[in-house]
């Protein structure tokens, strides 16, 4: 997976993630988060979930989106393998997530992500496409 890289942060995990479009950036961000949580290659696309997220601006939308996806694992023990944005409007996105329930015999967990933070958060257009920086509390 070459859609994100780790940046230095003293206490937590900070990533930079990119995409050709804003849509792709959001999709990659969710997949990057699950790549941090678990050995990503071990997850299969078994079932689908569709979620709707609201937010005041692009940054807020991204945090709310990652927050909701993180709860799928932390609350419902469900792992995301693939993410597809079905709708991307101002202030609202609809995403289809594919994945499977967590099984301790099959999946190797790597990091406990406590939360997605707003600190040092950015979503920006660049010459190559879109880039975001996010800090996860671990």
């Amino acid at each position: 997976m070459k859609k994100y890289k780790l940046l230095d942060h003293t206490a937590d995990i900070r990533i930079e993630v990119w995409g050709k479009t804003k849509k792709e950036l959001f999709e990659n961000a969710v997949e990057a988060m699950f790549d941090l949580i678990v050995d990503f290659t071990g997850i299969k696309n078994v079932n689908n979930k569709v979620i709707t997220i609201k937010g005041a601006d692009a940054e807020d939308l991204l945090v709310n989106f990652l927050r909701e996806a993180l709860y799928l694992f932390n609350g419902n023990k469900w792992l995301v393998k693939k993410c597809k944005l079905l709708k991307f409007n101002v202030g609202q996105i609809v995403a289809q997530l594919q994945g499977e329930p967590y099984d301790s015999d099959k999946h190797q967990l790597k990091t406990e992500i406590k939360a997605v933070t707003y600190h040092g958060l950015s979503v920006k257009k660049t010459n190559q496409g879109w880039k975001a920086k996010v800090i996860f509390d671990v």
Partner: protein
Amino acid sequence: MSEIKLERIDDNRWLVPQTGKMKVPGIIYANEKIYQLLKNDESTKQVANVAHLPGIVNYSLAMPDVHWGYGFPIGGVAAFDLEGGIVSPGGVGYDINCGCRLIATNLSFADVKDRIGDLTTALYQYIPSGVGSTGSVKLSGKDQKKVLEEGAKWAVKAGFGLMEDLEATEDGGAMAGADPEHVSARALERGKQQLGTLGSGNHFLEIEVVQEIFDEAAAQAFGLRKGQIVIMIHSGSRGLGYQICDDYLALMVKHMQETKIELPDRQLACAYLNTKRGQNYLAAMACGANYAWANRQLLMHRTREVFEKTLRMAPRELGMRLVYDVCHNIAKIEDFKIQGKVKKLCVHRKGATRAFPAGHDAVPARYKSVGQPVLIPGDMGSGSYVLVGQEKAIEETFGSACHGAGRVMSRTQATKVSQGRSISRELADLGVLVMASSKGTLREEMPEAYKDLQDVVQVMHESGIAKKVAKLKALACIKG
């Protein structure tokens, strides 16, 4: 990285000058060595950011273990006036009432030096730790409400400990004002599975030996003597606390416009203390704090069971007694004298330990003559310190001291530096047996990733905030 110019106040304090929209200046407790480290991260800017929040009193403070967090710096202390002041979930942190508990025993190093391996293996097997672990106690909805309202008291009533444990726990192990009605269904769900689990990351359980005593009178009051075996537990409120913080942070960000508070960082989102939203957060936060106290009480109970079984000794022989339990991620309403008048303040301690002096009402009767024990865990290699709170803490830091060594290296850096090395072998050479469910965690938590604990503690000692009582050396460590 930080462009803020600090001004030296004395050997152990630096002033963050009040500029722009800062409402007060900042003060960072640091010696020359720690001051040099400040240049490498964003924590100074975070101290300045906190000074922008409404109702902040005197100073935005940072303890010598300060490092870059999110929103507030880790090691940050800030107090807000109940009138006109705010409460900020990010100023408490995700792991509400993350804290430490120190257990003394009647054992000496000589008694157990050949049994450390057995004890560690048994603790590792019996105490759930690591990512995704679930606890040994399954809670019904009704029981969970009780846990949130009664904290460690619930655990003791359910048979997991002794009444005397509660006297040695901050707030008696139950924070007042907890109301489960203000905790979301999501947070409750996450809490059901995890009571009695250690967690991962920097959480640990250590068997330690008292290596050095600095203050005989205080050590005697705390029941500590040289060569004695003690146990330190570091854990918090697990997923329930993280979810409470996240829920209220989201809510406060959503209403940011309406509160008209200008924030330099969205993670500092807050609510005025005299509003419903602020009060509801405090009621939910107290539930998280109580869950954490019940959690550490359960972890201690399991530790007692392991020692009794492994060493085939009776509780009375072992004498496993709680020295103290302190939280280091919390917001509390406490009284302080501000310009000659006693005021109620909401003190945020984000990676900072309460450090009340002798004679203070909140100090347990048995420690009243010396002051409150302050527990400072270090990295896996260097062990921990026990300090005692001083009057100066009341005057300068809203009764607060540092909470640990503080990271100096990022997790990625630590992973890189430790490439090709065996951290557990290196620790074994230092006389510390380590068992961890994840090798990655061991690398991230390697001793070099932290500041020198001695420097951090010395700053507190010399500035008179908290005095050194004892140094503890790690013998064995269990990590998630």
